[in-house]
């Protein structure tokens, strides 16, 4: 039905179709949708600010606290601009990961491929709470994070397909994507956490007002080196935000079977911690802002546990149903999907509309398709790249090849 608002006539789709009308329920509904679309097209030029709310406030789940007196706010304001941005970012990651799934099944992507669909709100919430001058490091489930840190879509997809246009020229693969202020992309479970503490050390040493976000999963959370990093980060008051993305499974092992203590946000002991609803991008954003403020004020490191879920298995070799049920996956998709949650909020509050979000979906699909075309047509790296980037300063001009008489030039 048309609802008269101060923003002009608004047809709110998704509601129950009107009860009566000349062409029956569905017919009337369809006509009204078409009229809405027509109205929007006519008013394209006068759209955006006049038609939609510019800001709205939402409640988020309160965070659980460890060693903290204050908490992130539970009433969060979201601007239309930010809302559309977060939607686009999450949808881009979602579509990109599904495209990677497709390309992997076509055998165009080989080896390891760990997908992030379901966890989009974690990456998007963090990136929109920190600054581009902050640094970040994560583990191997990295494609979405790489995109958020600034790596172009086609550079990500062509890295997955092993082409020269990849962000690591095809030499790194799925798990090794890097950018300015972004240190990958790390294949050894847990090793990235001391590295991240080291980045934070360097930021403090150089007197920069920046922090490092060091991400790891529930599977890595039991690694000894993580506790070693906690100890030194706390002793030396390093500006490090440790983030545990708890997607409930370390490969095929549920958290209860791997950890004597599954309260990962408390495992930092002397490091204050918060447990956050990782399916809600606004909750993640506010919690990250809260943590970043704490760290920037010189109070030392903090630990943030994001409770999230991955739809795919651990990697493309894992169907993901031998250790959990399809019903469980379906339930999370239906009730807690991060993109749906944001969509409902944007539409329900008048920040956006179904139509507008659909346009974004179409645009995103187009961008992913274009990147995918590039990734499948770009050539593989030249043979000279086999022996380049071994040293920043090579001391020899050649290295030994497969046989002693094969001397390969190295750069």
């Amino acid at each position, binding site marked *: 039905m048309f609802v008269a608002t101060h923003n002009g006539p608004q047809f709110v789709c998704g509601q129950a179709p009107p009860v009566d009308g000349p062409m029956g329920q569905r017919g009337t509904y369809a006509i009204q949708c078409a009229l809405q679309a027509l109205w929007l097209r006519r008013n394209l030029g006068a759209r955006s600010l006049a038609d939609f709310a510019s800001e709205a406030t939402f409640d988020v789940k309160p965070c659980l606290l460890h060693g903290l007196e204050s908490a992130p706010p539970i009433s969060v304001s979201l601007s239309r601009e930010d809302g559309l941005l977060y939607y686009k970012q999450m949808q881009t990651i979602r579509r990109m990961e599904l495209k990677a799934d497709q390309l992997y099944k076509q055998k165009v992507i080989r080896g390891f491929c760990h997908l992030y669909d379901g966890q989009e709100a974690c990456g998007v919430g963090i990136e929109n709470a920190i600054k581009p001058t902050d640094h970040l490091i994560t583990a191997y489930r990295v494609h979405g994070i790489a995109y958020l840190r600034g790596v172009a879509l086609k550079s990500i997809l062509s890295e997955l397909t092993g082409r020269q246009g990849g962000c690591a020229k095809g030499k790194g693969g799925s798990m090794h994507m890097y950018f300015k202020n972004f240190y*990958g992309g790390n294949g050894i479970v847990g*090793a990235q956490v001391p590295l991240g503490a080291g980045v934070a*050390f360097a930021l403090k040493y150089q007197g920069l007002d920046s922090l490092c976000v060091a991400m790891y999963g529930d599977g890595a959370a039991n690694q000894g080196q993580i506790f070693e990093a906690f*100890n030194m980060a706390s002793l030396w008051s390093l500006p490090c935000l440790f983030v545990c993305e708890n997607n409930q499974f370390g490969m095929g092992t549920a958290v209860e079977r791997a950890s004597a203590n599954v309260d990962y946000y408390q495992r930092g002991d002397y490091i204050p911690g918060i447990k956050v609803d990782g399916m809600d991008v606004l909750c993640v954003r506010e919690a990250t802002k809260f943590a970043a403020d704490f760290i920037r004020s010189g109070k030392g490191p903090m630990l943030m546990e994001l409770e999230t879920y991955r739809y795919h298995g651990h990697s493309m070799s894992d169907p993901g149903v031998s250790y959990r049920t399809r019903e469980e996956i379906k339930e999370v998709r239906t009730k807690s999907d991060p993109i749906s949650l944001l969509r409902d909020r944007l539409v329900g509050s008048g920040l956006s509309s179904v139509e507008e979000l659909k346009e974004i979906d179409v645009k995103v699909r187009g961008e992913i398709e274009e990147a995918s075309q590039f990734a499948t047509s770009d050539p593989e790296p030249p043979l000279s790249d086999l022996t380049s980037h071994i040293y920043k300063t090579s001391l020899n001009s050649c290295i030994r090849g497969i046989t002693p008489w094969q001397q390969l030039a190295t750069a």
Partner: protein
Amino acid sequence: MAAPGVFGGLLRRLGGFGVRVRRSLHTSPAMSVQVTVRDALNQAMDEEMERDERTFILGEEVGQYDGAYKITRGLLKKYGEKRVIDTPITEMGFAGIATGAAMAGLRPICEFMTFNFSMQAIDQVVNSAAKALYMSAGTIHVPIVFRGPNGASAGVGAQHSQCFAAWYGHCPGLKVISPWNSIDCKGLLKAAIRDDDPVVFLENELMYGVPFDMPEEAQSPDFLLPIGKAHVERTGQHITVVAHSRIVGFCLEAAAALAKEGIECEVINLRSIRPLDMATVEQSVMKTNHLMTVEGGWPIFGVGAEICASVMEGPAFDYLDAPAMRVTGVDVPMPYARNLEELAGPQVKDIITAARRMVTGKEESRATA
């Protein structure tokens, strides 16, 4: 100021009797001093920390304790806690922190109290530091130095005596240095600190207190030695003897003894394990026609194995009059008892008999027969 050699000793003794000896009696253009390996390493780090603010040291006991082996003595006092950092006993953690700091723009010197403990951190050295440049196709580089004592010491037993030259030398992406004397240590540690790649710097505990002549040019704060270049310590025409670290000194002693029998050894100090300077080795073998490698580490898959295989594959093979041979530590964990420990590693006499046998066909000297 000490003057070198016998004449210097004479001067000192005369000075002790209250006799004033004027220096003009002994005019040498270059003023060299005696510097221990320990002091050479200390000077290298001091000079490089003064030169570049991004350079810092971390490790166990490097600060307040002045270093477990006193290599970092005085540096905490001079540079303060920001730049000389005592770590907890958590190698994997602090090696990872050092590597991350290097990725983010600093130039860490990460000390392992001995390289035996680096095994706890080896994942960070190899998988994080060594491979980062390649995996990132040049986006991330890691200008870090991992240093500390390597190989056998005296009476420290099996877990504290292993040589890691072959382990680290195996990995592309690392540069690996194994210096012998004070000049090596000074010039190569400075070069390692200035190098933009991860460098594993293998010292030797038993060399720390040994003094060597340090010529004037080596005393300059800009003195560097090239990584990847071996040094011929003694020329000779009968046999090429290749060694690294403390064993170089044993080889020179053996060479002095063999010279009396008319066997002239060309002793090559590798200085670097990776890259290995095979050009210098090959050039020498093409002159002497005999090759013997000597190392303190285990024989199987070791440094000597690599050198012999390389010579087989290269231009020097055709010049060999005898198969190339390795003299190594015994293939056992290091025992504690002194007599067994002495049997477990190559001694000067072992080098002498091996070289003599290769050149003359006999282990006993003709002179003693």
